[in-house]
Structures are given as C-alpha cells and as structure tokens.
C-alpha cells in the first residue's frame, strides 16, 4: 500500500478509536438519540475509509 492512503487511514482511525472508547464507556448512560449521532459519525467515516481503500486496492499501488 502506498504511503498516502496508509497515513490517511492511520491518522483518521487512530484518533477516532479514542473517541469511540469515550462513547463506549458511557453509551448506556446517554439517551439513544445521542448514540445515533455517534453511529452517524461512524457511517460518515466510511467516506475517507472508502477513498483510502479505493486508492489502496489499485494494483499499481501495492
């Protein structure tokens, strides 16, 4: 995999991981609608993930 998609994915998901942990320990205490926002956030993350994977899966990039 080339350097650019690699770094992009690492930075995005490394930071997101920590946010998700904060949500994970408290999601029982917060209203369901608030959890919905987090799930929406996760779905939105699919955009950079899809972009990075599209770059990464090109044969010439490996």
């Amino acid at each position, binding site marked *: *995999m080339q350097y650019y998609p*690699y770094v992009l*994915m*690492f930075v995005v*998901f*490394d930071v997101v*991981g*920590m946010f*998700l*942990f904060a949500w*994970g*320990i*408290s*999601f*029982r205490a917060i209203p*369901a609608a608030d*959890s919905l926002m987090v*799930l929406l956030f*996760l779905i939105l*993350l699919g955009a950079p*993930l899809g972009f*990075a*994977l599209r770059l*990464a*899966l090109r044969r010439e990039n*490996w």
Partner: protein
Amino acid sequence: MVNVPTTPADILPFIISIITSHTFITLVIFPGMIHLMLASAFLTWYERKLLARIQLRIGPLYAGGPGGILQPVADGVKLIFKEVIIPYKADRTLFTWIPLVLIFLGTLPFAVIPFGMNWVIANLDVGLVFVFATTSVFPSMIIIFAWASNSKYPFIGGLRSLFQQVAYEIPMWISALSVVMLAGSLNLVDIVKAQSKIWFIIPAFLSFIVFFICIMAELERLPFDLPEAEPELVAGWYTEASGAIFMALFLALYLKLYMMSTLTTVLFLGGWWGPSFLPQPVWTIIKTMAVATAIIIPRAIYPRIRVDMLIKIGWTRLLIIALANVFITLLVINSGVLSAWGL
C-alpha cells in the same frame, strides 16, 4: 501504613513490614518482576518444547530438571558471556539502550493487568487505554533500534514491523471496544468483574477473532512474522543483536507475548473467574497459557504470508469487520438478549 524507623532497633521490623506488605509482594514477586521474569523464561522453553512435540522432535532435554526445563537458564548464561558486537557506525547509545526500553515497555502493562480480585499492582480506571498506550510505543522503539543498527536487513525488518503493527493496532483497539461497551468501563478489574456470569468471548465472539488475529500480527508470530522472515532478512530487525542485547530483545518479545495473552484472558476469557478449587491467579495463568499455546502453535503449522496480503488483510478486512462489530454489539446490548447475565 509503614512507620519510618526512628531507632536502630526499628530498622529490622521496618524492613520486614515492607517485604511483607501487599504493595511489595505485588510489585516484586507476583504479579510483578520475579513472576514476569520466570514466566517469560518458561515461555521460551515451552515454545521450543511444544514446537518440538508437534514436529516429532524431543526438544530441550539435558539442561537440568524434567524435560530440560532449565534450558532458559543455560541460554541466559551463555548469552550473557557472549561478546556483544556493535556494527560499524551503529548508534551505540540507541543500540544498547533500546532493548532495555523494550523490556520496560513489556513489563509496564502488567502494572494494571489483574491476576485476581486483589492481585493487581495499580487498579487504574483507564487501565485498558494504558495498556494500549504502552504497546503502541513498541513499533517506534523497534524502528529506532533497526535504524541504530546501521544495517540493511534490520532496517527493512524494522520498516515491515512498523507497517504491520500500525496496520493491526487500530482493528485491535476497535475490537476491544465491544468489551468496553459490554462492561461499561476501561478499568480491567471492572471488565473481569463484569464477566462473573458470562465470559465476553460469547457475546463478542467476532471481536475475539479480530483481536486474536491482531495480537498475532502485533507479536510478529507466524503467519505474520514478516519482520523477521529468515529466508529474506536473516533475522529481521534484530539481525545485528548479539549476546546480552539479543537476550534482552528476546526477553522483551516473550514478555510481550505473555502480556498479550494475559490481556486476551482478561478481556474475553473471564480473567480470574473459574471453579473455586483453585486460587484466582492460577485460573488467570492457566487461561493465559492456553492463549499463548494458541499463539505459538501456528508457528509449526502455517506458512508465512506475503507483505501486501498482510497489510491488505489488516486495513481492508479486519478494520471493516471491527467497525461493523461495534454496530452488532450495540444491537445485541439494546435487544436485551444479555439482560439475563446482567449486561
């Protein structure tokens, strides 16, 4: 509370009170330093013996005790007295000190990993984050050591190690998120307490699979041992290590193997929970050894995969499965299926 001695006659009772204190015992004896040194030495012997049995060999036999169990001691003595060769133009300071830093990083997570209800050195509220934070420093230290060796093979091995550990770190974290959601805590003692009725491997089985694959990659174990691929890179990032430096690196690697096995036990296999005829720490150690066995056995079975396959699996399969598993865990918890077990 230990009283500071004011007269010479108080010194001996003072020393005895320190040695018999719970803090001293957990820090120095169990689950602290002595236990960790013995466990990592035992794991080196255990791996050699297990692989030998699988390959219909005898393995270590002659170095004292039954089954050559003192082989790690013999290896240690040999390596201490061997000459340490530092490559030409290598960075002497980093080359000498990084192995010690790696040992420190390998032991540090045990400060928060519980072996029993009261068998934990520091009951930290963010214990899981602490463990992940310390393990995430490993790849940096490995690439620094590889660079300090001033040799091509270690450097290529170090780069591979860095890429591999970075690729598998994030799926590992996100798979552990299911455990955090089920337990509602980052405290490892609380996570084990939450498994008193049901081990998290059952409701979070997919997380366990992802986590297990990720720790195999983090530990550079077959089929993910590309950073030390012998036919290509001699011995990978520690090709230039010799004597005591080699011993220190191996100690650090086996400490990491023990640490990851214990962490898997704590997160998914109920930690210290088990029938009461054995003490809690014994159950933790038995489960840890079972996980370590599962990590070691593929070394005798599977071939090594290609580097592009390795990175692709991490980013395009495990990460997506781990993220999807967050949704699945949320659905499982909200559906009330686990309410019978208090989750």
